[in-house]
């Protein structure tokens, strides 16, 4: 089945048909069931979703992120209220933007607005094939910008590279179970991926250097640029 030529303003059709009429995500999952049912229902019930995600298209997503998303997270509080971040991720599942749109979110938009990039990497992890996920996400392990993260134990500081690393290695991020990808070394053995080269350079030198840094202490203040 192909993507409908026009977008329905609300989620009713998407949810009523449980994704049976629309296209599947590139990794073969049904976008209507990628998020858990309980979370989905809370999102559809939330004021943010009703007010800010009605009749939104791919371009409006950028506006919403810039205006309303200043932390990442899944659900918060006793009522397990979904965050704007999660609501917009759900909207993206419904919109199913193509790779060209995602590239804009990640690159041009992502440079300016870090939470837009965070949203896009989250969406890519949910819907793209394992090979594409590794290829798309790994460059952002270099992005060291700070992110606010709201979890069960309040708001904490995290970083884009940590968030991307969580997406690549953990199985549950932001109240969403991530689908099980093949491990990186398996993909390397199948010759689908090249081994990852860290932006810092060759691995062997780095591992020796690392021991020194860790011995110096983890403050990171004093040894800031001693290695350049």
């Amino acid at each position, binding site marked *: 089945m192909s993507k409908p030529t026009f977008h329905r303003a609300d989620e009713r059709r998407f949810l009523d048909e449980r994704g049976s009429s629309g296209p599947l995500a590139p990794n073969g999952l049904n976008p209507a069931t990628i998020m858990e049912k309980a979370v989905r229902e809370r999102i559809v019930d939330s004021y943010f979703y009703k007010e800010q995600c009605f009749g939104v298209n791919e371009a409006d997503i950028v506006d919403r992120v810039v205006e309303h998303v200043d932390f990442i997270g899944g659900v918060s509080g006793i009522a397990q209220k979904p965050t704007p971040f999660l609501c917009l991720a759900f909207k993206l599942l419904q919109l199913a933007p193509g790779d060209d749109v995602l590239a804009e979110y990640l690159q041009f938009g992502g440079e300016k607005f870090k939470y837009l990039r965070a949203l896009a990497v989250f969406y890519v992890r949910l819907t793209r094939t394992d090979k594409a996920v590794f290829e798309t996400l790994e460059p952002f392990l270099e992005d060291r910008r*700070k992110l606010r993260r709201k979890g069960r134990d309040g708001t*904490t500081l995290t970083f884009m590279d940590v968030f991307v690393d969580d997406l690549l290695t953990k199985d549950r991020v932001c109240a969403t179970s991530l689908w099980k990808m093949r491990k990186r070394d398996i993909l390397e053995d199948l010759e689908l991926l090249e081994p990852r080269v860290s932006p*810092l350079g060759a691995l062997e030198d780095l*591992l020796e250097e*690392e021991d020194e840094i860790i011995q110096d202490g983890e403050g*990171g203040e004093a*040894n800031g640029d001693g290695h350049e």
Partner: protein
Amino acid sequence: WESDNDDAGNNSDSSQPNKKHTVDDTDDLDPAAEYAAWKLRELKRLRRERDAIEARERDLVELERRRNLTEEERRAEDDAHVAAQREEKESRGKMA
């Protein structure tokens, strides 16, 4: 959805979007320190991957070694292992 922010200090100055959060996410306040912190995280990730590969290789070597043993040698090794486990368990039992 913004009014009941649970980590809000005070909602009066909502004109400043950053004021309602206790965590500051402004970048480039101290680029050198931020770079150093990122470098440490990256090194830990590389170390983690390297350790995973080494653990897997150790397992393979051990597997190969076991396969090359004769039946008696294998049994002797198993008995020693079981004996060690039992001893461990008994010593724990006495403590309690």
